[in-house]
């Protein structure tokens, strides 16, 4: 099958860290990037639109970009305001931008003490978003308030990603360096009882409704299945993508008193040659997900292969550096965007 080449957008000098499709405009994307691979230097937030190009091939173009003092690691669009989006920055700050306003953010919060690595906007409580940071915390925010609403001491180490459940309000999932995936109920915040060795005073830890020992090494990414509640995908340094059935989780205040540990691994998707950096379920199909990896590929998988068939559906190989982010178009089924340290954003149809 001869596929059309992907639409490509290059941002020289600014390797990408993540992308987000606008929930309001079918052809609009935001792209978070950092100079020097995010090791030192500035960041840049790009607003990109996908339009008809010459010869009917779709083409990408930069509508606007914002300069930041520090590298940007993630970006999320507001679910209430079509022009607003929030970015996660290496200096621990979060910034709210309005694409109608040039140069400066309309709001900025700085509570995290270390790099903010992910940000996610709730699509149930549409006025809330969460951020996760290397300082081990997850913070809940609303654009109107100058301070965070809640802080969750989620993990004893870096929290790579925190995502709202698409089904249940106030339920979030996190993943971390410590190799676990956790599900928290924001309505029942409680601290874990301090064990014989633990110390709740200097190192408090919020009780998770469920802790999934997902991997022996770091878990870099997770995503909620959009159609099957409490089915999650996790991916990380162990190179595998794992699908977890967490329906046994108990929510509510009593659950916080006796935190559960467990999770049923439905299936493992093997194939990436190096650590998997990002995983995302398709918003259109319950059994399809995309992953981006340090092996410089972006892959698409199915969890229900035809008999005798393979899980792996597609390999996107044109990137020449680590592929760091990928995201499904919310409007067009089968359209996937991937971004990479080669400073190229690719949009292609699977």
């Amino acid at each position, binding site marked *: 099958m001869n596929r059309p080449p992907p639409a490509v957008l290059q941002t020289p000098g600014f*390797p990408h860290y993540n992308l987000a499709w606008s929930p309001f405009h079918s052809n609009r994307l935001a792209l978070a990037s*950092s*100079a*020097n*691979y*995010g*090791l*030192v*230097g*500035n960041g840049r937030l790009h607003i990109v639109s996908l339009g008809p190009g010459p010869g009917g091939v779709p083409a990408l173009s930069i509508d606007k970009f914002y300069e930041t003092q*520090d*590298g940007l690691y993630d970006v999320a669009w507001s679910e209430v305001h079509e022009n607003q989006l929030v970015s996660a*920055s*290496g*200096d621990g700050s979060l910034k709210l931008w309005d694409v109608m306003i040039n140069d400066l953010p309309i709001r900025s919060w700085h509570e995290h*003490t*270390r*790099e903010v*690595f992910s940000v996610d906007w709730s699509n149930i409580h549409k006025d809330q978003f969460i951020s996760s940071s*290397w*300082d*081990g915390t997850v913070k809940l925010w609303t654009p109107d308030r100058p301070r965070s609403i809640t802080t969750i001491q989620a993990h*004893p*180490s*870096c929290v*790579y990603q925190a995502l709202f459940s698409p089904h249940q309000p106030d339920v979030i999932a996190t993943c971390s*360096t*410590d*190799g676990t995936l956790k599900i928290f109920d924001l309505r029942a915040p409680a601290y874990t009882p301090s064990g014989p060795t633990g110390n709740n005073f200097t*190192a408090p830890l919020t009780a998770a409704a469920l802790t999934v020992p997902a*991997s*022996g*090494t*770091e878990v*870099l990414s997770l995503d909620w299945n959009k159609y099957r509640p409490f089915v999650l995908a996790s991916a*990380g*340094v*162990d*190179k595998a993508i794992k699908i977890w059935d967490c329906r046994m989780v108990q929510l509510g205040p009593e659950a916080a008193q006796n935190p559960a540990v467990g999770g049923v691994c439905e299936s493992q998707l093997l194939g990436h*040659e*190096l*650590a998997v*950096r990002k995983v995302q379920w398709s918003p259109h199909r319950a059994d399809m997900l995309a992953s981006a990896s*340090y*092996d*410089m590929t972006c892959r698409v998988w199915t969890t229900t292969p035809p008999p005798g068939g393979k899980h792996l559906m597609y390999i996107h190989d044109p990137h*020449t*550096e*680590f592929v760091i982010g990928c995201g499904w178009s919310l409007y067009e089924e089968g359209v996937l965007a991937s971004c990479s*340290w*080669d400073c190229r954003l690719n949009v292609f149809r699977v």
Partner: protein
Amino acid sequence: MSLPLLVNGAECGPSNPLQGLSKRFDQDRGIQQDQFGAGRAGSSKETFRSQYAPAPGVDQDAARFFSAGPSPAPALSAAPSSFDLSALHRNLPGAQFHSAPPTAAHMQSPMQSPPLQSVGPAAWAADFLQQQPGQQSASHLLAGKGVERQATPLSREHNMSPLTQSAPGAFVPAMTWSPMHNTQFAPMTGVQQQGIPQMQASQIDAAKWDQEFRSQELSLNSAASVPSAPVNAEATETASRARAAHEADELARTAGLLLDTVQGETNPKFKNSAFMGLMRQLRDGELIVEGNDFVERELASGAQTTGDAKGKGRAADAPTMGGGLRMQLPTLQRPVAGPSEADTQHYAESSEDAVKADEDPNDAYFRQENEDYIAMQSAMQDSHQMLASPRWNPQTSEWDNLQDSWDAFEATSTGIRPLTAYQFQSNNPYLHGETSRTRHHAAHGGIPETLYESVLELEAAVQRDPTNVARWYELGVKQQENEREQKAVQALRRALELDPTHLPSWLALAVSHTNEGDRASAYNAIREWVTRNDRYAAAVAQFREAHPEPVNATQGEKLTNLMHCLMSIVRENAGGEIDADIQIALAVLLNTNEEYAKARDCFTTALAVRPDDWLLYNRVGATLANSGRPDEALQYYYTALELNPAYIRARFNLGISCINLRRYDEAAQHILDALVLQDGDSVHDPEANDKRGVTSSALWDSLKTCCLHMQRLDLATLCDRRDLEAFRLNFSMQ
């Protein structure tokens, strides 16, 4: 974001040390190398003291982490090939934090201050002036030599790695030092080597120079009691070079580890990856971080001095730059790799070629200039080595002599006193002669005349009879037992000055040097012992005839040769009576070489002949502990202490083994006992209340570690204050 943190402060490490330690890039080398770095360096250092793994001062959590042993910490079980770049990312800010080597260096030598963090020239001057007095007094406390003291301000400057020098002009102050000495001490060795760069440096920025000169002058005057001793420029240069290179390469090391992890990647994409190229450049030290960006090393240093002339600026940095340049040499001179070469090399080659292929004219220019400079530098050094030969300058050798004799003195506020001589404690109550030995002593001691109980008694005995070799020797051994190595060495040296043929002193001196980690001196002492030993003269001569030592043998070869010599003697005498001394000598050498199992065999053999020698029991114990068997060591320490309950070193060793076995309460008790014994065996000066008895800092440090393990911060604070009385009270109250 993260890297600026590395430049700005020490607090940039991960909030949880575990986190930093469990990074997969470090999992192979990082933990052992970094955290055990100090300990490992100490392995030859404290041979007859056993060591505990976490160096004192290492974070408590880290200590707990190590003591947890091979627990299945998830992060550590990562497959070696798997890696995560975000971990690298975190690793970079963490690098400074969990890189123990710099810390270890600071711990070992209190004279080194932590690298300056804010380095604006003016701020620097202010800092320097403020620190000057404190530093002087600190060096008074140490039995430091004049040279070292003078070297400190210099090394303080060089201490700043290229990474931390974000402000321009950071090197100017450092350079101003040497020209000053240059004018005052023209015929100094080593200055010539720096001469050319310095002259150029002095042209850099007259205003700044002037300002710095004045501040230097001020500080020098404030230290007027210390005649501005000559700077051994050469030594300073090497030291600073090593340090700068080291710190710059924390980042490089991380990059190197990353490259190692993807070494096996066959995907051609990896070879062409710009990111991997960047990592390679970082690893090879071609790039450094400056401010918000990666900068080529040459450009960076050029910018640091001043903008006016790149050539001059770079030359000015020569002493510090040396490390970096030399580091690059292997890459630049590496022969073209054949197809069978290892992957890494191939990568390096290809990247280098790639760099050459698409570098722009500017880069090419700098690279060329850099190579020229390296060539010039090495040529210059060669010529200086030639010049350093005897015909160099009679005046210089005269100066060297002067310098040597100067080194032997310590300048204090009250005057100058010789340094190598043994310092007796003042107000020694035993000094009043035999009359001070009461009937009580005589009646209850029941000890032979020569066996004195305490250091003070021995000191008094020596002072009464200062030419008695045996007394000096006994004093030296007693000081060893009391864990005061420096004093022991001085006493033994004195004994040997009086009588170079006193064999037991040579042997004891070797033990002391081994404890101090001075391999060369230990080797020399044993060699002297062998050479002067009449009993084996024939055998030694025969061996030396059969195995002539090459003239330019390295230290290692000499050591092995001597060991073989001793072994052959032992073997020849196999049938006859066992000589404990030769077994000990051999064991000391084996210990120096870290062959603990063999060393232990030798000691046990010696024990068969001298079953009542507590020193030997302690040595077997320490050897066992050093080879990682603290549990077995315990019984030997116990036996040693049964034989001699006042044996401080054995008690201390016992404490350390207990720490290693995680029996912290017990350990604290033993170390406390050792401290009390040590304290009791010295004179409290009634006139200076703050002057505590002579207790050794090694004991206090270990005690502090122990307290931290016991979660007793209160006690640890008392350790810092060296308050023995308060500690004893608090400890018994727990």
